[in-house]
């Protein structure tokens, strides 16, 4: 079976869905899994018996991993917090994310290490979301002691249930509001990972390079496309791109990872590095880029796919797009099976799968290969790629966002080539900004020009009749 990995991933995913739908006891599933494992071991010489049992084992593994993810460890901070809001807690830990300003408040997550309730101290683990009402320069990895109420996340309605689930998928079950500077004690010291700190520093530095050479709006769009930082994108721009179905260009995707790999490979080639050293160094740079951009689902998918391809070249094996895609899915789901219910995860994988599966079929159906006019063929191919992705994600978008956007196909044909150009210009701008800032000033003009053109086209497209329909 050529695509055993794909079968494994499908059954593992089905197991996760099954465990979410049916309330089965963890130990009952474990018992069944042990029995199936023994049967598979005994029947391993019989391929007709072994394969179904093996796939069933993958299904049970999916069930077990989801059940296990719901169970918090005994020392988790949530276990020390009561529903009584009047209790003041004293939590020691370190900042595990970069503090971000959003809607006038600073948001960051704190990895807890010790909690004090009354006069009792306990060692603990887990993360909490901190909302701070005033400005204070805080950095990733800094040790902090926070004093205040800890709030368990409730779900009063469907909207808050969605937010609660979203935070739970990130491993966050508690929030703390900091309204007074006396609630924060800074004992000093650093507890984070130095590599991650360096990646965050590099990201902040690159963001500075972008904002130094571009006005606020183009800089926010370029930061999103090159560094995956969407926080400064105006609501109106984001909303209009959702309406035209082109919001996917505002995230770091496989294309960006491909560009990074291409640039690194080219530089190493010019420096006459041997073939295998080039592959290893490119893989290392891809991992660093993944951390710099915040290691979100689309970036992890693209990075893992890129690494699988690089490994195939390293081992001189033929790479397979389906196997690389499912290995990326398995990588994410093994770490956190609840990501299967994340809309970003679903859209990222379904769109790639739709393009990979539907595009060749549509191409042969429309007999595009027979077209001899190159420009027509190029436009036709663009249409088919957009149409495949739109078709693949149509149901997910309609169910989650309650919007159907017929303008998506046209918008993608016009906007995706521009987005590609912006990404290329963005990487050139960042690199030249690091090496030769005067050249970056010159390059910033066409980059801003293309971004302006993209925004104007998008604004015009959503004004077309029946461009999008909310239901």
């Amino acid at each position, binding site marked *: 079976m050529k695509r055993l990995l794909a079968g494994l991933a499908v059954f593992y995913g089905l197991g996760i869905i099954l465990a979410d739908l049916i309330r089965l006891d963890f130990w009952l599933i474990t018992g069944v899994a042990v029995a199936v494992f023994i049967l598979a071991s005994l029947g391993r010489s019989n391929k007709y018996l072994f394969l179904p049992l093996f796939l069933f084992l993958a299904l049970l593994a999916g069930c077990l991993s989801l059940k296990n993810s719901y169970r918090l460890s005994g020392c988790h901070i949530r276990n020390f917090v009561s529903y009584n809001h009047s209790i003041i807690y004293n939590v020691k830990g370190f900042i595990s994310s970069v503090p971000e300003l959003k809607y006038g*408040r600073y948001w960051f997550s704190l990895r807890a290490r010790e909690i004090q309730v009354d006069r009792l101290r306990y060692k603990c683990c887990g993360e909490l979301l901190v909302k701070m009402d005033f400005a204070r320069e805080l950095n990733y990895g800094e040790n902090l002691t926070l004093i205040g109420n800890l709030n368990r996340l409730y779900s009063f309605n469907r909207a808050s249930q969605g937010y609660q689930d979203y935070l739970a998928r990130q491993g966050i079950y508690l929030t703390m509001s900091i309204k007074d500077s006396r609630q924060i004690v800074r004992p000093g010291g650093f507890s984070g990972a130095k590599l991650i700190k360096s990646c965050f520093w590099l990201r902040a530095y690159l963001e500075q390079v972008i904002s130094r050479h571009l006005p606020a*709006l183009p800089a926010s769009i370029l930061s999103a496309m090159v560094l995956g930082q969407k926080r400064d994108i105006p609501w109106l721009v984001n909303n209009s791109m959702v309406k035209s179905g082109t919001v996917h260009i505002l995230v770091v995707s496989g294309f960006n990872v491909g560009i990074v790999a291409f640039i690194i490979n080219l530089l190493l080639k010019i420096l006459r590095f041997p073939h295998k050293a080039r592959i290893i160094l490119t893989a290392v740079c891809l991992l660093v880029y993944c951390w710099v951009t915040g290691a979100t689902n689309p970036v992890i998918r693209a990075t893992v796919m890129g690494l699988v391809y690089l490994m195939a070249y390293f081992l001189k094996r033929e790479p397979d797009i389906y196997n690389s895609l499912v290995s990326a899915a398995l990588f994410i789901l093994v770490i956190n099976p609840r990501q299967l219910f994340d809309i970003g995860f679903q859209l990222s994988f379904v769109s790639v799968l739709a393009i990979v599966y539907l595009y060749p079929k549509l191409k042969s159906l429309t007999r595009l290969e027979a077209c001899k006019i190159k420009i027509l063929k190029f436009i036709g191919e663009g249409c088919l790629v957009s149409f495949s992705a739109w078709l693949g994600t149509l149901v997910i978008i309609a169910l989650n966002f309650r919007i159907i956007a017929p303008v998506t196909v046209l918008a993608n044909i016009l906007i995706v080539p521009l987005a590609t150009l912006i990404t290329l210009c963005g990487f050139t701008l960042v690199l030249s900004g690091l090496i030769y800032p005067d050249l970056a000033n010159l390059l910033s*003009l066409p980059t801003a*020009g293309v*971004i302006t053109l993209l925004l104007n086209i998008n*604004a015009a497209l959503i004004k077309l009749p029946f461009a999008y329909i909310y239901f």
Partner: protein
Amino acid sequence: MFNFTPEERRVALFLLGLAFCGLILSNLIKLNCRMAGVAYPRIQLAKLDINKISLSELIGLKCVPVKLAQRIIEHRNARQAFGSLEELTEVKGIGQQRLEKLKDIFFIE
């Protein structure tokens, strides 16, 4: 010396093309300041003028609940126009936190 691979040639051409575009745009902006509009986006693409937006547009955007949108427009009509975005807090239902969100959406020309 110029023994470039096809990839390197493409990269060199792209860089040169980009630099030429930059030079042309820079020159055009110096000649006519209106050309800056070609290179840099107008604020209207990112934010809405609170004094010009209609009720139907505001409701269609789904950035605020319908009743709040009606109150914003009524308040604006009653006082002719908003002088600053901070005046939005005079509308019932807009606190400091919502104002911060609205500042991301609206501007005053």
